[in-house]
């Protein structure tokens, strides 16, 4: 089932949590709402579920306006960040809860409930835990039980709030893969909230990037990573080196140095920010060279296949820190030393007009 939100606006006191959000979530997709904490992603998820009321705007489920529908009638499955399992009930009773709460007429027989619960527990591979209490489970197991419980009412959509947020790194990776697989089996329209870019890029069909209550970019993981639409998206997805400068003909002037860059449509003299990822920077050790930015090597961390070089800017970029990723082989070739003066030459540069400078 598809979900649309139209012109959603939500304020908490004087704080604007969501500012005129409109989004389409097509049927059967797994979408990530990604952004830093406080960007409004969880609020949006809760509004879609009906747990929170928008100040303005509509939520459409399957094309029908659901804004006035109580959460208990919306038939959405919601998995809470801390799972919200009922501590006084066994795993079995937790999963059966939704079915047992139905009005008498629609309630399945106890035998059917039993069958359905075991089916779901098998689906999440935890049938052997049916008689345990939530306190006796590990974090990853609780997460899967919470999911089984949400699926038990045959929801039309599945909403997950930071589904892996409370888990340790190893379990998190496992569950990510497992969730993707589960989605491929069930094909239920799903939205999950996360602040972890790696998680969003790895699991989702589509990523919605949010910041300060606004949508910054929507796209496939490939699109948003390769072609970030805004400086925020560029900075949020992966580590980044940034250069403040001014457009000067074909290049960007940073202090006394210049960076070459592709054709553009900035006005001459415009204040810009240029981004390059660590692997998009090369190091030039030739003292005579004038290309790129002058910097001094601070630390060389070369214990993996790729080496990480940390540098401090000199000349125009004094006080700035840079990070470069090159192969270990290349470090040896260049004979890089800590304290050495070098120049940084970007192989690819993404330039944005500086916010506030044009306004």
């Amino acid at each position: 089932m598809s979900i649309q939100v139209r012109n959603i606006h939500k304020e908490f006191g004087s704080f604007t949590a969501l500012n005129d959000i409109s989004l389409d979530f097509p049927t059967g997709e797994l979408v990530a709402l990604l952004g830093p904490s406080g960007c409004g992603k969880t609020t949006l998820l809760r509004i879609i579920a009906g747990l929170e009321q928008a100040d303005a705007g509509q939520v459409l489920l399957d094309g029908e306006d659901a804004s006035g529908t109580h959460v208990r009638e919306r038939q959405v499955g919601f998995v809470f960040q801390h799972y919200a399992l009922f501590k006084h009930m066994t795993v079995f009773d937790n999963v059966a809860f939704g079915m047992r709460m139905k009005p008498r007429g629609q309630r399945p027989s106890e035998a059917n409930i039993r069958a359905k619960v075991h089916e779901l527990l098998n689906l999440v591979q935890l049938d052997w835990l049916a008689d345990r209490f939530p306190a006796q489970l590990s974090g990853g197991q609780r997460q899967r039980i919470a999911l089984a419980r949400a699926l038990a009412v045959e929801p039309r959509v599945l909403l997950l709030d930071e589904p892996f947020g409370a888990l340790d790194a190893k379990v998190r990776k496992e569950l990510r893969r497992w969730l993707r697989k589960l989605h491929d089996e069930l094909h239920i329209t799903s939205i999950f909230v996360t602040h972890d870019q790696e998680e969003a890029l790895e699991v989702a069909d589509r990523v919605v990037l949010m910041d300060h209550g606004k949508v910054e970019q929507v796209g496939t993981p490939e699109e948003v990573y390769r072609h970030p639409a805004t400086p925020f998206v560029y900075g949020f997805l992966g580590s980044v080196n940034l250069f403040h400068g001014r457009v000067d003909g074909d290049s960007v002037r940073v202090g006394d140095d210049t960076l070459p860059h592709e054709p553009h449509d900035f006005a001459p003299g415009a204040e810009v920010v240029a981004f390059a990822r660590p692997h998009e920077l090369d190091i030039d050790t030739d003292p005579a060279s004038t290309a790129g930015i002058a910097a001094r090597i601070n630390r060389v961390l070369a214990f993996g296949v790729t080496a990480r070089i940390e540098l401090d800017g000199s000349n125009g970029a004094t006080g700035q820190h840079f990070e470069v990723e090159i192969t270990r082989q290349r470090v040896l070739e260049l004979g890089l030393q800590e304290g050495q003066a070098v120049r940084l030459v970007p192989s690819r540069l993404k330039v944005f007009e500086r916010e506030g400078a044009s306004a």
Partner: protein
Amino acid sequence: MSTAKTFRVLPGFNLTLGYTLGYLSLLILIPLTAVFLKTAELSWGEFIDVVTAPQVVATYQLSFGASLLAAAINAVFGLLLAWALVRYSFPGKKIVDALVDLPFALPTAVAGIALTALYAKNGWLGQYLEPLGIKVAFTPLGVLVALVFIGLPFVVRTVQPILEDLDTELEEAAASLGAQRWQTFRHVILPILLPALLTGFALAFARAVGEYGSVIFIAGNLPYVSAAGVDGQTHREGPVMAGATTLHPGGDHAARFESKAATSETPLVKWTILALALGFFAIFLLLPLIAVFVEALRKGWETYATALVDPDALSAIKLTLLAAAISVPLNLVFGVAAAWAIAKFEFRGKQILITLIDLPFSVSPVIAGLVFVLIFGAQGWFGSWLSEHDIRIIFAVPGIVLATVFVTFPFVARELIPLMQAQGREEEEAAVVLGAKGWQVFWHVTLPNIKWGLMYGVILTNARAMGEFGAVSVVSGHIRGQTNTLPLHVEILYNEYMFSAAFAVASLLALLALVTLVIKNWVEHQAARTYRETQESAS
């Protein structure tokens, strides 16, 4: 046992533990042992005869039956009141919240005459109930009303913190799974509240069984009919009072619940709950309080003032202040010493010590008074020796002070022990590592951390010291101008049908209760603020 010399990092273990044990033995253990030895003088046959006499059996029935019923009523309405206080915002909520503690702070003697004023044949409510054939005062029903009054805060204060801490996600989860509001309450909220509710019920019941002060007024002590037990049992204000100090940063929670569809009720349900809860509050708590002041001023300010400056009243005030002025510092020092020994050190028998400190809570005040009569009375252990040397303890000021110290014994210790245990000893150890001496550690590190808990304990001790009725009544002898405390003076005036004067003196005590509640709230507010600040600076 290891022979190597072990030494403790923190100072003062021997001093504080020694003092604790000494004080405890002298005031609590030895006197209580006396009671058991006295009982042992009876043969088993005599003992059985005494406890199964028809009059005594009738008191059992009233004691337990009325207490059980009162606790059940409190469980229902206490839950509603706690719910309204946590979940809804309404004008005057802070005042209602503060006044819930009134039965803790209001001397039972005052509560008793207030209830009598309301329910007597020509009383505020009695005059309407009487024509309907409902007699309250001087009947078992009156006992029930008094027991409901004293039991209410136990339920509210045990349920309230649990309700506040309740994770809204659970209700949201239930709603998202399609549960109706009532189903959510029945299957999700109630099971979580149940342990607290049962605890509150049990505490209210225990308090009711041991109640003496307020019941003696409204019951009228007609044999077989309304002689509620003076053979009572457990007084356990301790845990609840501790529960009431549990700090919940964030203040009013209502908005959090009311703004969300999944955690709010339909307006009809909401207004019904509010009406029931506040109606109950008004009839059982507010009305008695108002009655005291209105009755006190019924014959005008002049009569009121006269009653207060009467020499007997003045001497009662003096004696009450004296008893409080002696017992508060004594129990304060004891409380700090005991808490230091228990919270900062490990030693054998610690749990037993904690239980023993609680003992005076579990002893009915009347028994507490009898204990001292058994030891120092004319027929008591030291009776003849004392009379030879012309020293009077029972029916004299020392006896009153002793009884007061006894009943207020655990309050400070009970506040401080959990607080200091929760704070651990890291900060004190750090101070010792930095070279601080024992007193310096206590003064500069420990005291600032426990000051609000300490104040809280002092307020409770003081309120109880000034309001104690049962124990003091037994040892006092009611000699006007000499051994009458304020609560006893209220009783004397009341029994002599000097109602206005009785209520005037009672209003003083009620005022004291209100001041206690105001200070208590202020302390809680300060403590919550300090707590929030430390939380914020920690994050």
